[in-house]
């Protein structure tokens, strides 16, 4: 049984149904890439996994380490070991990166983390993400550049040591050097801590640095294609339109078949 199991997940906002039956399994130590065009539902899936209140689950379930977390509060999911690196990290004025991290770490623990232990973890994470130590004294995401925000997300991930992390377009808005640093950081957390990762992306770039084991393609709220990294190359060659045509044809056929059976 996989650590994170998503079964037949249907999700809607006030206006629209966005996810229309998603099945996905992710275990520790696995790197998955979820690709798809804008509006296909990738970010909705990411936010739903962490329990964003704007998304309503109408059908299906999310199970993490054997526990049904479909209705769990976001902080309970985080404490269980899920993490979301936000596409648009939110500024928290007045709270330094370091203080926030201390709070978040302590939220998971019975006893507050010791000063020395915290400092050594922070130094390790700072080195991993190649940021200045002074960075952690700045107010979280407040006035950060796009690249700094994304680094701060992965810095938090390194500190909080989740078991499965969802990276929601962490690669967008990063220049090539920053992308490499961030991606290598993710790869190392996978290699060293056995992190399970779901990388959500439009592009192939980040997959040159993080070695995905599985690739899933999402269209219109469903995962329509699954495979290995060879799928990335195919997407690069053909684009989503080709897949959409094939998938559309397939769906049309199955509808026809259904009609025929009635």
């Amino acid at each position, binding site marked *: 049984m996989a650590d994170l199991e998503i079964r037949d997940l249907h999700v809607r906002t006030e206006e629209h149904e966005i996810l229309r039956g998603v099945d996905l399994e992710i275990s520790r130590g696995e790197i998955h890439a979820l690709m798809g065009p804008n509006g296909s539902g990738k970010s909705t899936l990411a936010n739903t996994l*962490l329990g*964003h209140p704007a998304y309503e689950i109408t059908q299906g379930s999310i199970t993490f380490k054997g526990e049904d977390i479909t209705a769990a509060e*976001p902080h309970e999911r985080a404490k269980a070991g899920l993490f979301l690196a936000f596409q648009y990290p939110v500024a*928290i004025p007045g709270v330094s990166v370091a203080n*926030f991290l201390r709070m978040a770490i302590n*939220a998971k623990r019975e006893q507050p983390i010791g000063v020395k232990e915290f400092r050594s973890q922070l130094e390790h994470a700072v080195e991993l993400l190649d940021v200045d130590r002074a960075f952690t004294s700045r107010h979280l995401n407040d006035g950060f550049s796009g690249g700094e925000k994304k680094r701060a997300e992965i810095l938090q991930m390194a500190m*909080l040591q989740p078991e499965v992390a969802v990276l929601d377009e962490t690669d967008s808005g990063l220049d090539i050097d920053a992308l490499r640093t961030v991606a290598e950081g993710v790869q190392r957390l996978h290699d060293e801590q056995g992190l399970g990762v779901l990388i959500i992306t439009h592009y192939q770039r980040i997959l040159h640095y993080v070695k995905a084991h599985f690739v899933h393609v999402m269209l219109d709220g469903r995962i329509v294609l699954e495979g290995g990294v060879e799928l990335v190359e195919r997407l690069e060659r053909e684009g989503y339109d080709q897949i959409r045509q094939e998938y559309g044809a397939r769906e049309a056929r199955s509808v026809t078949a259904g009609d025929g059976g009635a």
Partner: protein
Amino acid sequence: MTAVPERDGVGTSRQAAPAAGANGSRPQAPASGQTKPGTHREATLYRALAGAGAGDGRTLAQLREAAARAFARLEIPVWRRSGFWTTNVQSLDLDALVHGQAPASGTVPEVVARTVPERARAGRIVQSAGAVVHAELDAELRDRGVILCSLEDAFREHRQLAEPWYSKRLTIDRNKLEAANAAFWSGGAFLYVPPELAIEDPFEIVYAIEEPGVAQYGRSLVLGGQCSEFRVHEYDLAEDFSGQALHAGAFELYLQDGARCRLAQLQDWGAGEVFDLSTRLVDVGRDAYCHWLPALLGGHLVRQHLELAVSEPGGEMAFRGLFFTEGSEHLDAFAVDLHETGPSGGDVHWRGAATGESRASFEGLIQIDPGAQQTHTYLQIHAMMLSPRARVDAIPSVLVSADDVSASHGGTVGELDEAAIFYMQSRGLDRPSAVRVIVEGFFEPLIAELADEPLAQVVRAKIARKLASARADIETYATSR
């Protein structure tokens, strides 16, 4: 939030175009024409003192007598701003209150011991009800000429030093409670820091009310000699009793040439029905500097007139303030950034939050007098509403009578940011913790400016307690939207 960006038709002064700033406030057009008598409706309710006080050479006895006559003549005040704000003190049963008496215990009140941090300090004076119950001053500082004593003692022992400054810029008859203070004050605090003396640890001036039925007329006079440098922390504290009490305070601080002072005030009158109607004035002399931060953290009905006046060229000030109202509290704060001469600098930055059914009004006035050229000042007010029934009015206004100046203001009013709450929840913080982080973060820029960790911790703890007690309220608000 109500924002009323200008007052019109006031005397001969006019609006100068403020500097185009990054603050988002629009430049204001000059006030046009005359306002017809009788139809004039001012959005702003208060005026700066902006001038000489009652202390014009009269003796203390004469001033007390004049104030007593005003007290007899005046009614309990009601302040109304056209249409949307009233501060009404008429529910105060003044006749039932006793003033001028020492407290029963005669020692440092429990609420003071509980609240004021134990830390290194230059001196401390504590008044409970109508009498000073404790006064201490570092012996070395005493030897170097520092004076810290009750104002009563100052008039007995240092009359020549105190009297010329007493009520120099404070009036005694604008309203009944101001008159009561000037007529009947007892105890009080007097602090004198001689020229050139720099003192790191704070002087503490404490006013406490332990029981209902007390009218406390507190009076403080602080003199900073040339190039002196010091800190003053005022604490206004009461026990959580039930019943009425009054603190009508008057505070004046005069900074002479080159003096530098960091003045902080922590006010929390507790859960009792405590009325606080006070006037505080800071006069910044030539090349002097004052950093002033009142933290108004509780009181049944609080009206504060806080005026920071730069009276000589080269004076600079930073006027900070924070407030947090809860329950059914009513806060009416009027902060004046007054420039009587230039060049001078000002920077006003206030932040406030409201829970429960509380009402808070912050009126911030930048006033630049004729001739105060090369004045540069900026006022910002940020407010956070934490309950659907709470209300915060923020009313910045600018009154400029010089042309070579920049004066502008900006502000925001906000509610809890749900995106930020989800973000923090996704890191493992539960919802109440996330809310606390947001509100603490909202105040933190000002708390950090206290540059005094023991005091900062007291402020943080008080904010955390208020949030904890408003938790249900905040939850309801969040889920109702």
